[in-house]
């Protein structure tokens, strides 16, 4: 009898996200088993229980998903998981806390595509504002855009928190090779004048860019908003927008709404979950892998 596909789903939160459970089962995993309130110190023991209970052949049909709400925690857990295994007792691990890695990948890949098709340019040297950028999606998106060459500034309500997050992104997720800056939302009116790209990743229902901001954004090319719940985080940008010109833009900027981004996010997450099943060798997947896949999907869906 062929061994069944088992995905062990670990989260630091009280519950798994039903989003991830549906996605995992739809991607082909037969059993999705929840482990909740997981602490960092438990990872090693849980991983070793996973790998020592199946043959190396059956381990190819075994995977670990790391959820939760915190990007740093999830990234650390991914590292611990990887370090707790040794050949041939290894399984694939995919970290996507809050779906943030795949959402960020979907956003950055669709924005990159708009820059390319509408403006014949790339992220290289672009001035980018990550509004509400202190959350999990904002962090991952800021890092991906910075790695692609953009000059990123994370904007938060409190400057010191934004600075802490920028430091975290640079040191932990960017290996010290990127230089994300921080700014306070009180100064958005100034920053927006020179911004060429805007990511809006704030909480649902909070307006981050007003009509006046849009009118003064003389350099703006692409703005993306992941908020699917009205009102939109960027005035004039609708959840369904997929490269539509933003009303009131003086620079011909285009907008990407939550559903256009969500479509790519969904396909990216599904493909990464399938990659874990199909891969001959174990894979360890996080936001960078999500971005590679999202880029391919954006190209393919055209």
């Amino acid at each position, binding site marked *: *009898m062929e061994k069944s596909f088992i995905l062990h789903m670990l989260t630091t939160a009280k519950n798994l996200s039903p989003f991830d459970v549906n996605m995992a089962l739809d991607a082909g995993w037969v059993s999705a088993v929840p482990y909740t309130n997981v602490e960092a110190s438990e990872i090693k023991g849980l991983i070793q229980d996973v790998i020592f*209970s199946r043959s190396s052949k059956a381990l190819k049909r075994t995977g670990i998903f790391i959820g939760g709400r915190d990007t740093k925690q999830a990234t650390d857990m991914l590292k611990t998981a990887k370090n707790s295994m040794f050949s041939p007792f290894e399984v694939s691990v995919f970290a996507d806390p809050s779906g943030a890695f795949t959402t960020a990948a979907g956003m950055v890949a669709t924005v990159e595509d708009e820059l390319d098709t509408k403006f014949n340019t790339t992220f290289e040297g672009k001035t980018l504002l990550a509004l509400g950028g202190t959350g999990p999606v904002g962090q991952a998106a800021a890092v991906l855009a910075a790695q692609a060459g953009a000059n990123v500034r994370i904007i938060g309500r409190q400057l010191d928190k934004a600075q802490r997050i920028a430091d975290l992104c640079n040191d932990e997720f960017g290996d010290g090779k990127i230089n994300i800056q921080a700014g306070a939302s009180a100064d958005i009116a100034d920053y927006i004048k020179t911004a060429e790209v805007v990511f809006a990743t704030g909480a649902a229902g909070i307006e981050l860019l007003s009509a006046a901001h849009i009118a003064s954004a003389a350099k703006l090319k692409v703005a993306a908003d992941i908020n699917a719940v009205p009102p939109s985080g960027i005035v004039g940008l609708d959840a369904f927008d997929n490269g539509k010109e933003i009303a009131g833009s003086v620079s011909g900027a285009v907008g990407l709404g939550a559903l256009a981004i969500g479509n790519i996010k969904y396909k990216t997450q599904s493909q990464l979950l399938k990659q874990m099943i199909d891969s001959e060798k174990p894979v360890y997947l996080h936001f960078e892998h999500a971005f590679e896949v999202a880029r391919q999907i954006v190209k393919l869906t055209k």
Partner: protein
Amino acid sequence: MPKRSILHMFDPMPNNSPFDINMALDAGFEVLMPYSNVKLESIHGLTQDAIFSRSPSGIKRTGIFIGGRDMGLAMDMMSAAEQAMVPPFEVSVLADPSGAFTTAAALVACVEKQLKEKHNKDLKGSKALVFGGTGPVGIATGVIASLAGAEVSLVDHMSIDAANDAAKEYNRRCQSNLLGAMAGSDEEKMAIIADVDIIFCTAKAGIQVLSAEVLAQAKQLKVAGDVNAVPPPGIAGIAATDASVALTSPAGAIGIGALAVGNIKYKVQNKLLEMCLSTEKPVYLDFREAFIEAQKIV
């Protein structure tokens, strides 16, 4: 439509063990339901909810697994589940906290086999030590070996009280005859291993308990078994994959490594899970049945 098989997995810990999950699915259970942070008081209600929601034919496709880290608690949960059954509303129950029952059963069965084959000796009348003896695998190993007639001491590396308490508690629970001992330093280890026939090593993974120098003092040693799969091995000279390796010792001792034991453990746990699925009458399986199956398998 035939009812799908369901295994309700009760666990007092914050999470079930992925080991047990993999094993249960691989043994053929179709649906697993994890229940974590389960308290002893809840077992009665949970068990009755499991038995009264399916017809007697559906009940045959239903099982209860008791996990956790504590052997005594698992035994209490097992008897609470048994008492909650209302025949014919009755399901099979398997307890294997930390995998300790099946690991211990496999370890003792492997050692027993080598003892018989290489030294023509039985557990009965042999003197044995269990290092890491106050952990779940250690206690279960001690109990199984003691019930088979060996004279067993549980060895703790820090406290004689901890060892004596564990021995006393499980003698009461299981009618075994365990003793307690303490050995932390190499000198203490050399002293207590001098006259033993069997050494079981069930200490924490990745720690060498007995160095070659210490082991050289085990003049009577006949068989040593180690369950630590993470290097370095718990006993010097035994590689994890060794099924029967000659150790440098005056009495011609044989060593058994963790993966050899693990292989049997895996088969035992698989067999016990399958028994829960295939049995006509409900079964209640703990370390006793695990040892019987392990003896058959080796």
